[in-house]
C-alpha cells in the first residue's frame, strides 16, 4: 500500500468545456449565416471568408512564434475573428481586403495586448473599423442589392408623384439604413413624402425579406434568421447569455420607437424599430460581437449596462451621427468602458447587508 495517487484541489469533476470547444461552437453557430451568404452572393462569399480565416490564423501563429509563446491557433479563436471580419465585407470586395482586415484584427486588435483574454477591443470590429477608415469607398460603396430588394424599394416609392428624379436612384442603390438616413436628412422632398416612403419601407413585406435575408448587404449580416439560428444554438449551449443581446436590442427598439420618426418623438410606426433591428449589423453585433467574452463585462448587471450603452450609441449614431450604421463603433466604444463597468457593478454577496 505504498501507492501515491495523484492529488489536486477540489473539484475533481469538470464540465466538458474548454476554450477551443467554446470557439468551435461559435464557428458552428456562424455557419448558417455563411451558407445564406453563399446562397445569395455566390462562392465569392466563401472565398472571402477563407481568405480572412487563413490570414487571421497565420498571423496569430506567426506572432506567437515570434513572441516565443505556445501557438494556440487550434483553439479556434482566430478562426472566429477571421469569419467575423469577412462577415463585415460586401462580396464585391477585392481579395486583399479581408486579408488586411484580418491581419490588423489579430496583430493590433489581439496579439499586441498579449493575445486571447487580454485584448480590450473586439478584434474583428477593430479590423473592420480599420478597413472602413482606410478604404471607405471599398467598404461601404458598391453595395450590391439583390433584385427583389430593388423591387421592394421600388414599391416603396410607387404611387408617389412629384419625386425629384434623383430620389429613386438614391433609394435603390443605398443600404436600407442608408435610405432611412437619407430620408431623415433630405430637403429635396417634403417631410410627409419622406414619411410615407419610410412607412412603406418599414412594412411587413420588407421586414420579411430583411428577416430571411433576401436583400443586399454585407456577407454575414444578410439574413437575420440565419444569425438567430446560430445565436439560439449558442444560448442553448450557455455560450452566450441573454443579458447583452436583449438589453442591446431592447434599447434600440425603444429609442427608435420614441425618436426614430421623421416628425418628432413618437412619430415612428411600431414597425420602424423592427426595421432598424433587422437591418445593418445589429443582429450580428448584438449576438456575436457585443457578447464576445473577453471584451464584455463579467457581472450580470454590468452586461445589462453594456448592452444598453451599445444600444444608445447605435441609435445616436444612426439618427444624428454621420454614418447610417452604428453597431461596430458603438460596441468598440463600449469595449473601453468594460473595466469600469465591472468595477462598479460588483454584485452584493449572498446575505450581504446594505451598508
Amino acid at each position, binding site marked *: 500500500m505504498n501507492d501515491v495517487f495523484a492529488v489536486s*484541489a477540489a473539484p*475533481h469533476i469538470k464540465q466538458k468545456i474548454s476554450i477551443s470547444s467554446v470557439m468551435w461552437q461559435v464557428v458552428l453557430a456562424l455557419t448558417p449565416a455563411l451558407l445564406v451568404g453563399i446562397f445569395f452572393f455566390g462562392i465569392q462569399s466563401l472565398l472571402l471568408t477563407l481568405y480572412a480565416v487563413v490570414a487571421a490564423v497565420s498571423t496569430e501563429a506567426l506572432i506567437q512564434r515570434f513572441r516565443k509563446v505556445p501557438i494556440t491557433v487550434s483553439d479556434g479563436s482566430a478562426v472566429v475573428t477571421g469569419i467575423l471580419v469577412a462577415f463585415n465585407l460586401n462580396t464585391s470586395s477585392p481579395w486583399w481586403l479581408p486579408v488586411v482586415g484580418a491581419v490588423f484584427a489579430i496583430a493590433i486588435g489581439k496579439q499586441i495586448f498579449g493575445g486571447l483574454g487580454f485584448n480590450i477591443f473586439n478584434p474583428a470590429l477593430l479590423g473592420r473599423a480599420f478597413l472602413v477608415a482606410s478604404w471607405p469607398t471599398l467598404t461601404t460603396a458598391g453595395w450590391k442589392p439583390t433584385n427583389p430588394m430593388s423591387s421592394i424599394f421600388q414599391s416603396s416609392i410607387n404611387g408617389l408623384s412629384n419625386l425629384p428624379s434623383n430620389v429613386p436612384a438614391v433609394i435603390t442603390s443605398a443600404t436600407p439604413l442608408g435610405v432611412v438616413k437619407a430620408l431623415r436628412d433630405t430637403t429635396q422632398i417634403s417631410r410627409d413624402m419622406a414619411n410615407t416612403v419610410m412607412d412603406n419601407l418599414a412594412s411587413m413585406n420588407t421586414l420579411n425579406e430583411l428577416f430571411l435575408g433576401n436583400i443586399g448587404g454585407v456577407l454575414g449580416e444578410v439574413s437575420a434568421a440565419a444569425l438567430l439560428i446560430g445565436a439560439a444554438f449558442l444560448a442553448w449551449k450557455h455560450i452566450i447569455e441573454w443579458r447583452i443581446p436583449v438589453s442591446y436590442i431592447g434599447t434600440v427598439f425603444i429609442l427608435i420607437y420614441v425618436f426614430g420618426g421623421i416628425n418628432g418623438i413618437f412619430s415612428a410606426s411600431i414597425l420602424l424599430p423592427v426595421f432598424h433591428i433587422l437591418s445593418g449589423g445589429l443582429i450580428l453585433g448584438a449576438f456575436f460581437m457585443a457578447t464576445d467574452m473577453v471584451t464584455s463585462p463579467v457581472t450580470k448587471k454590468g452586461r445589462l449596462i453594456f448592452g444598453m450603452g451599445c444600444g444608445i450609441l447605435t441609435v445616436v449614431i444612426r439618427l444624428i451621427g454621420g454614418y447610417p450604421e452604428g453597431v461596430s463603433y458603438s460596441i468598440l466604444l463600449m469595449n473601453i468602458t468594460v473595466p469600469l463597468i465591472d468595477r462598479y457593478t460588483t454584485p452584493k454577496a*449572498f446575505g450581504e447587508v446594505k451598508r
Partner: protein
Amino acid sequence: MGLKTFSGGIHPHDNKVYSKDKKIEILPIPQKIVIPLSQHIGSPSKPIVQVGDEVLAGQKIADAGGFVSIPMHSSISGKVTKLAKFNHPTGITVQGIEITGDGEDKWVELSDDTNYMDLPANEMKDRISKAGICGMGGAGFPTHVKLSPPEGKTIDTIILNGVECEPYLTADYRIMLEQTEDIISGLKILMKVVDAKNGVVGIEANKPDAIKIFKNLLKTEKNIKVVGLHLKYPQGAEKQLIYASTKRKVPSKGGLPMDVKVVVQNVGTAIAVYEAVRYNKPLVERVITVSGKIVKDPKNIKARIGTYYSDLLEFCGGTTEEIGKVISGGPMMGFAIPSLDTPMTKGSSGLLLFNKKEAHKKQEDVCLHCGRCVDICPMNLVPSLIAHHVRNNDWDSAEKFGVMDCIKCGSCAYVCPSHIKLIQWIDIGKIKVSESRQK
C-alpha cells in the same frame, strides 16, 4: 411538489446510480483502526490512553480539547498499539491513536432510556457532547456547540440536511430509507434541546422515495415539514439550504445560521444524536459510500470510525482498473488523498475511486472573462476576479471582493472553460486573509 431552491448553481451528472440501490452492509470488525485526534473543526482532542492499554468499543480514549472540540472513543475492542501521526482524509497527517483489535467486539455498557424524550434539554445536550458528535456531512462542526447559542440568540427552526447534492454519494439517501424513524427521533431531540418550534427535513428531488417515506411518517406532525428541493448543486450547502427552505439569508462576512434562528444538522448526525441520547452510545460508526466507475462492487457500508479506506475498498472487491485518484468525500468538495492507507473519520461520507483518465489534470488557460463562474456562483461572488487578486498577491482586494464569503462549493471551477483552479486560488486567499487578520 412545489420544489424550492436558491439562485445560481450547476447540474453535474449525479452518478448515484452505482450505489443508490445498494442496501447498507455492515463491515466485519477490522483488525486495526486509527482514531485521528482531529476529526472536527476546533482544537484537537487530548488522548487519555497509553500504548499497551486495553480498550473496549465505545470507551473514551481522548478528551475534548476545549469547548469547540469533541471527545474520541475507540470503535473496536483491543489494545492501543501506537500514538503517532497518521494519514488523514483531508490529505494531511494528524496525530492519532492506533488500536489493534482482539476480534471480540466487547462494548462498554450501554443503557436504553425508552422515555428519552422526557429527559431535560440539558441532559440531552450533555449526552450529545459526551458522545463526541460532530457534523457528519463533511465540515465536522461539533454538534453541541451548534446547539449552544450565545445569550440572547434563540433558535426557532432545526433543518435536517438530507440533500446529499454531491454526485456519487448515497450514504445519506440509504439511511433516510432504512433508518427514517431514528432520523425523526433525532430531529425531535434536537428541537427539544434548543427549544425550536419547527423542524424541516430538506431532501433533493432526485430522492422521491425518501421524500415520500418522510412525508408519510410525518403526516401527523404539524410542526415538522418535509421540503422537496430542486436537483441542483450545491443545494445542500448550509446557507443555500436555509434560504431554500425558509427564505432566510444568513448574513455574509461571517454570519452563522443561528443569526437567522436556524440550526442545520445532517441526517446522519441526527441518528448519532438519537443513539447518544437514548442509548448513551458514542459516535463510533457511520455509513459511507464507496463508489466510482472502476469499483467492482460499489456499496454503502456501515463501518467503524477509524477503519482504513483500504479495508473498505477490499470489502467492495477492489477495482477493475488501475487507480488514478482517490477521493475522500464527494467529487466536488472532497479531498484527493495520496494513499488508501488512511482511516475514515466521523465526517467521511464517501470514498471514490477514479481511473487514470478521470484523474487527468488539465493545464490552466487564460481567463476569457466569459462570466460563467459569475452566472453560477451561489454566493453571488465574482470568482474570476477574486482569483485574479489572489494571483497578484493583493489580499486586500481579494477580501473586498468576498474571498471569505466563498463556501468553496467548486461550481466555478466546474464550469470554467479555461480550467482555472479557482478554488485553489481562493483557498490561498482565505488563508492569507485570515493570517493578516490575526496580525
